[in-house]
């Protein structure tokens, strides 16, 4: 059985792991870069927020829900024209990053919004009483207080993206999921499939542990 894992296949494993990390990492970063400000705006424009604007809130909220309810495999093919426009190609790892980022952003924004909502409104009131501007309230109070929640949200997002990235094989995105399907399923090599799953489990475990460690370091709510 061990002779299945030839040096060539092992090299392919390494390459696929690299592609997965690349897809998840880049789309996670882009998704957070878009999702964070959107999440902040969703919270601030809500009824009891400091930038109350129900029109904006409703439109942004609907948009976020629309993207979130689109199955990823459909999103993947539906936005091919956009992907081609941005990356110049509709296949490959770089092309997979576009739909992954678009899927991640609304996910992150809801998680950010939820974490911000958990910040005690008394803290905002206290900052207002000190004469804080809205920008200062966001930067000095809301975001630092919500940071542990935001980081654990990003961790969850990265893990979801790992699952999504397996589907990116459908547009030639590569990665571990693609390897598992091509070798494990299409070439009848179940041991490759098992190895892929094992590596993915370890990968997700690692991401979760790093995320938990960061949250523990940042969270001072418990003594």
């Amino acid at each position, binding site marked *: 059985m061990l002779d299945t894992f030839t040096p060539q296949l092992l090299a392919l494993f390494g390459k696929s792991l690299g592609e997965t990390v690349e897809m998840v990492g880049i789309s996670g970063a882009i998704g957070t870069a878009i999702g964070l400000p959107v999440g902040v705006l969703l919270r601030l424009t809500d009824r009891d927020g400091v930038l109350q604007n129900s029109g904006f809130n409703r439109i942004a909220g609907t948009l976020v829900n629309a993207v979130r309810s689109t199955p990823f495999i459909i999103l993947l093919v539906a936005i091919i024209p956009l992907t081609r426009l941005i990356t110049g190609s509709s296949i490959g790892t770089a092309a997979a990053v576009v739909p992954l980022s678009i899927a991640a952003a609304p996910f992150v924004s809801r998680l950010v919004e939820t974490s911000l909502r958990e910040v*005690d409104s*008394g*803290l905002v*009131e*206290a*900052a*207002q*009483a*000190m*004469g*804080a*501007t809205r920008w*200062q309230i966001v930067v*000095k*109070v809301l975001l*630092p*207080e919500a*940071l542990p929640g935001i980081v654990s949200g990003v961790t969850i997002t990265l893990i979801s993206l790992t699952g999504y990235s397996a589907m990116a094989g459908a547009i030639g995105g590569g990665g571990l999921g693609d390897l598992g399907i091509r070798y494990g399923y299409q070439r009848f090599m179940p041991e490759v499939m098992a190895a892929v799953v094992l590596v993915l489990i370890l990968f997700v475990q690692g991401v979760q542990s790093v995320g938990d460690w960061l949250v523990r370091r*940042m969270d*001072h*709510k*418990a*003594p």
Partner: protein
Amino acid sequence: MIELRNIFQFYRGPAGPVEALRGIDLNVVRGEIHGVIGRSGAGKSSLVRVINLLNRPSRGQVLVGGQDMCALDPPGLRAARSRIGMVFQHFNLLSSRTVAGNVGLPLELAGIGATEIRARVDALLDIVGLGALRDHYPAQISGGQKQRVGIARALATKPSVLLSDEATSSLDPDTTRSILTLLQQINRDFSVTIVLVTHQMHVVKQVANRVAVMDAGRIVECGPVIQVFTQPQHPTTRGLVDEFAPQQLPGSVNARIIKLMAANEVRRGQLLRLAFAGDDSDRPILSDLIRRFGLDLNIVHGHVDEIQGRPFGSLAVHVRGDNDQVTAAIAHLRQVGVTVDAQALSNA
């Protein structure tokens, strides 16, 4: 220092508009500690939030240091707010910042440099006695210590007014006393005018110079604490005073007296309720009754306390003796300024 003129405040509640404040007029003098007391829902917290415009009143005028708060533009309002410190019931400290970080926050918001912030924070922590805890997080310190951090933070921008919204309400009695002592010290040393919102009479009694009593969005009584305490006019005030200085005799005491009477029909006597305030309690009024009027006394109930060094109290005394002498004694008591409520006792 603070003047509220005809303040109304409406909220949109689930069942139509709610009137939180209904025509508030309040004048807080520079340098005093002004208590605002009332039961929950009376509008105390709404009132105190009107002063720094955390609540913008629906109608009326707010003057702080002669400045019309409602007329300020946003930057002007922020500047005015930084001259009004505020402490909260639940402290409202940032869990993500250390003690020093919390105290320094208002200075950071005001754009003051890091070195100056450090020096000011250290000085403030010394004032509230928390120098040793500067690098602790709020979750690691006690409630009383958290409120000291809250007070230091409120003082960071050297405000001339300090608003305290139920600052001691979630603290135990000992801690409450020490926090109140700290507020008094701040009021004295930095001549900060303090508005102290509370539902606890003993808080007002310990530190306030004057007090406003609130009920259903209105100020129903306002004046020097000793006056409001000893001559409560409004039912709400009476109710609040009653909690720690009962105006009515407890039923058990009444029952006991009646039983005593029944046991000894010959010596009925009268029950006198004596209330006194100020210097009278230094006089030997009870021994006067015994020596000058030849009466028998039995103190059945009572308490003596003091408000800012002036004694006040009330006693229920069972008096027995010659009827004319009792009448003369009552007249004498009234003459020296004791409020007397006489009640003939019968064992009917």
